[in-house]
């Protein structure tokens, strides 16, 4: 929420080491309220900032409630003027986009070329695939990055949402935080992935509802989530090391929670090598 932006950032910044500038905070504080009014949405949240070499993308997200719908993302280049961030057109496009590496520039119109083997549509049957050069705009990459990160880090504490027998997902009005034992365990944090939400990248679409509210402790690679409770007492922060720049927070005794991302959108592929062996293995090995 725009009104809670400062508070949420206050929890996330100390663990991220990255922050919004005063300028950005001030501008967002104004422009998100206008955006919420213009889009006439109930829930509008600041989602994060993706840094390019020349400019940044500010991302906001709105949800319709009850929560059975896709989140809608918006982006802004100056934290003032907002546009819709269209999701990748198809899984195919998403897969293609995910092949583009390197830093973003900050210019949504920046063109990337992807070379791909394709069978021409008008070709005869049995024709050889040909090399095709496809052009994509940077903003499409941004949309994919946002989806991928959101898929990974949209996390809610256990008990914050509930599903009615009719299948409607809604906030649990009785939720008031987690106990100390609970908030120190990864098992208490669940992925929020509404059914209609398709996974990014080239993963298989998973239509069953297990992904919705699955515990993050099952995420791979093992150890990709860190949980720290050292900042303010009663505030827990989670970070997904696969996406450096992510932070989720929970105020344990009030149940307030949220997440944000400030980073350059790069995935840490080396994580499996970086993580120390699991404690048990460590013991047996030495």
């Amino acid at each position: 929420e725009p009104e809670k932006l400062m508070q949420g950032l206050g929890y996330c910044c100390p663990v991220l080491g990255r922050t919004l500038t005063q300028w950005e905070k001030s501008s967002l504080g104004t422009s998100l309220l206008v955006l919420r009014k213009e889009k006439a949405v109930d829930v509008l949240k600041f989602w994060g900032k993706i840094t390019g070499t020349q400019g940044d993308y500010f991302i906001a997200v709105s949800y319709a409630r009850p929560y059975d719908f896709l989140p809608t993302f918006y982006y802004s280049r100056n934290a003032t003027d907002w546009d819709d961030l269209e999701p990748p057109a198809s899984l195919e496009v998403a897969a293609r986009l995910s092949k583009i590496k390197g830093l973003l520039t900050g210019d949504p119109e920046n063109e990337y070329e992807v070379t791909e083997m394709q069978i021409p549509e008008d070709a005869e049957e049995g024709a050889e695939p040909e090399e095709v050069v496809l052009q994509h705009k940077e903003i499409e990459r941004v949309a994919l990055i946002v989806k991928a990160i959101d898929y990974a880090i949209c996390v809610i504490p256990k008990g914050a949402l509930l599903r009615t027998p009719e299948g409607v997902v809604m906030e649990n009005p009785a939720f008031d935080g987690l106990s100390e034992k609970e908030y120190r365990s990864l098992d208490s944090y669940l992925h929020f992935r509404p059914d209609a939400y398709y996974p990014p990248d080239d993963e298989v679409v998973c239509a069953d509802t297990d992904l919705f509210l699955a515990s993050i402790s099952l995420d791979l690679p093992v150890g990709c989530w860190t949980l720290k409770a050292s900042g303010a007492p009663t505030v827990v922060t989670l970070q997904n090391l696969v996406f450096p720049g992510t932070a989720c927070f929970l105020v344990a005794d009030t149940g307030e929670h949220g997440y944000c991302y400030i980073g350059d959108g790069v995935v840490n592929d080396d994580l499996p090598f970086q993580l120390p062996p699991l404690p048990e293995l460590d013991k047996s090995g030495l």
Partner: protein
Amino acid sequence: DPVIHKQSRELTDAATKFLKTQKLLFAPPRDTEDGEEVVDEGEPNDAEIPDIMEELRLFESVGIGFGPQESVKIARAVWKLAEDPKFNLKNVRFFGKILGTEGDYYVAEGELKEPNPPPEEEEDPNPNVVPPEENGKGTNKYNYFVCSYPGAPWVELPDVTPQQIQAARQIVRAFTGDLDSKMATYPPFPGTERHYLRAQLGRIAQATVLVPNGMLNPPNEEEEEITTNDEFEPLTPEDLCTSAGWVHEREFVRLQGRVEKWSPPPPETDDDDGDEPPEEDDTEEVPGILTSAEEDTPIGETPSWVGRLSKGMPAKYAVACLRSMRWPGAYVVGTYGEKVNKFANTYIGTGHKSLGEAYAPPPPPAIEQEFDDTLLIEQPDPSPEEEFPPDDEEGEGDDDEGDED
């Protein structure tokens, strides 16, 4: 940020308009989408402006300021003013804020590249009335710009007249936030709140704008203007924490309401109002330029300036703050840099001078020349002080001859 939100929120139309105005503050200057608000009259102006964010940080470190979000908006609003070709400013700074009863004034102060032309002469100027100083000189050296919130349009205030300065010295009246509100005061004030505001801003600036002692050279035989002292050794925060570390930058305003003395033409017939005895004026001792703030008249036992150092950091990086007891709300901050002193002035207050005692309106003039219908308003209930004014009028007198105006 939290996922759950309790209720839908409807902004009122007024709030939406306010937000949209403020949003323009952040929009890139010449890149606004809806054509209506774009100020595209040629190149942006290149007025010099100080590093406002840095200045606001200095103030923040001694507990003065509007909070980080508002600070950004203020800095941006002043920058927009500086860039606006319409105002054609040579330099501009954030002066401060005047707190009013219904609304506030954010104030910027600057010099024009080309002074405004003098207003058209009145048909029959009274030769005995002290004339105003022209724009760009003396009491009208600086121009003042006000807006009601950062992002709202800036309004240029008119030049001040000696009569307004004189009247402003005799009244205390809260600002309402409406530039056109009537001045129903006794003694009467010639003008509306707009003119009263301009007069008070000038008085505040003259009394409270300080620079580190030694940084500027007074005019001498070689240089007629104030020059920067190239050999200046930056003062330490301890030095800057006493009024001895600072000198007044602005010129003294005489009793007659001008910086440069004006002598009336030799009287032909003695038909003056009796209010302005020009002979007395001749005896006024005027402090020189760059007078030390140490010499400002104290308010009874309270010194005119009280100094404090910011806490929590090594002494070398402390920020010194002097606050004016004479004009509560006026602050000057300074800090030691490697080769320079960073410093800044501001004023955040109701625009009233502290008299050191309860205010008592001046006694009515001996003979009323003309019926003044602005006096026909009802006065608020008199307080005990008003009904029984204190015998001791020294503080008042002191004040008018004293360190300021």
